[in-house]
């Protein structure tokens, strides 16, 4: 009789332990599943926003209420959106590292003189703090969409110093070539502008290669695109004035009855 009672208790303890392990395991698995689900839903809505923004012919911005905080990582292979795990994306993002609560997205295609890439700018409710003495930076901020310019605090609190000096964009004492307003906006909104610029250069290089290849094909029409090709190399080396020269050479080619390069 005593043996039977012992058996019952041992049975209860073993089954209890198994049940406890099962329920605890289930709780963890379920939590993981729900997080993954939220992540997929979030990435889905982010993707929809990107498509909608690109579909518009105007420079547009949108607001996205985010169910969870996320961060943006810029690495050697490109940009990633990190929610619970790293999700690589194939576009350029200009953003601070961590985004909380509401996400505001602004889209600008970079064309100088031809289309190079699309740039997505991110900001959240906490905004961005910058220091500047350059009136042109203040003017650029004025030209941003309303939901962006109201979140950029100029000469308040602690923030990165951004100035424009001649043909250079100077961020915290480091000088970069000024290659248009799109990159100046990236300088204002990016936590890691150097990394952003490296990926931009790679996109510019791809675009230049594409147009060089097109110029080689267009030579079959009997037109000489060598001058344009020489300027393309300079544009690839971040020569700001090369874009203007390519533009005027392209107009010359069209006036001579040659196919337009871009």
């Amino acid at each position, binding site marked *: 009789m005593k043996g039977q*009672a012992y058996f019952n208790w041992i049975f209860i303890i073993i089954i209890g332990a198994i049940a406890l392990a099962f329920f605890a395991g289930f709780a963890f698995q379920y939590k993981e599943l729900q997080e993954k689900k939220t992540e997929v839903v979030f990435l889905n809505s982010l993707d929809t926003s990107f498509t909608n923004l690109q579909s518009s012919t105007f420079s547009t911005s949108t607001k996205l209420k985010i169910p969870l905080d996320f961060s943006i990582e810029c690495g050697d292979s490109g940009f990633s959106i990190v929610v619970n795990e790293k999700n690589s994306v194939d576009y350029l993002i200009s953003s601070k590292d961590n985004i909380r609560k509401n996400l505001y997205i602004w889209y600008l295609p970079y064309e100088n003189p031809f289309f190079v890439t699309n740039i997505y700018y991110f900001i959240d409710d906490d905004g961005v703090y910058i220091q500047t003495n350059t009136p042109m930076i203040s003017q650029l901020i004025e030209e941003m969409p309303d939901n962006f310019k109201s979140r950029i605090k100029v000469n308040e609190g602690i923030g990165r110093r951004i100035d424009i000096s001649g043909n250079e964009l100077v961020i915290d004492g480091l000088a970069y070539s000024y290659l248009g307003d799109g990159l100046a906006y990236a300088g204002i909104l990016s936590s890691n502008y150097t990394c952003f610029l490296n990926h931009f250069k790679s996109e510019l290089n791809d675009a230049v290669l594409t147009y060089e290849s097109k110029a080689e094909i*267009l030579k079959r029409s009997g037109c000489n695109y060598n001058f344009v090709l020489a300027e393309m190399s300079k544009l690839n080396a971040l020569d700001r004035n090369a874009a203007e020269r390519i533009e005027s050479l392209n107009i010359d080619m069209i006036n001579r009855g040659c196919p337009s390069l871009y």
Partner: protein
Amino acid sequence: MKDKRGNLQLTESVLVMFFVLVIIAIGLVVFYRFQLNSLHDYENEYREKQIMSMLMTLPNELGYTFMGKSENAIDTSRLFSFGNDYGFKTIILEEVYPKSSEAVDCTRENYPNCNRFIVYDKTSQRFENKLVESRPVSLYYPLEDRFKAGKLIIEWHY
């Protein structure tokens, strides 16, 4: 006698509890499987949305522009040095009108006397499934200064 009856009742209660736990466990497993399926549905939906947005946006990236102004057509002379990485996908542009008797893959050498551009192709043996979507596009041939009707096809390997 009382001891014996008490033990019997205890054994009975333990067995009832055990079966209740087994039923709850089965229920939870079924519930989890159901949730997992719904996650796969979300992932498929996400994949489909991404491919649809690529179909919408890719013609802008490969677009023909005249003095920087979009002409709503794909510039076929730019398709030979497409450097972007789109993951495990195949992107094909096919000329559908004027219709040709056989498909001729385009290379730098035979362009523009061809009708099919394999713009991007990255596949792997480990993927067994593929999602295929397409849309009509306008193709521009600058050497001939002609527009032709085409189809943009994107295959997503997963």
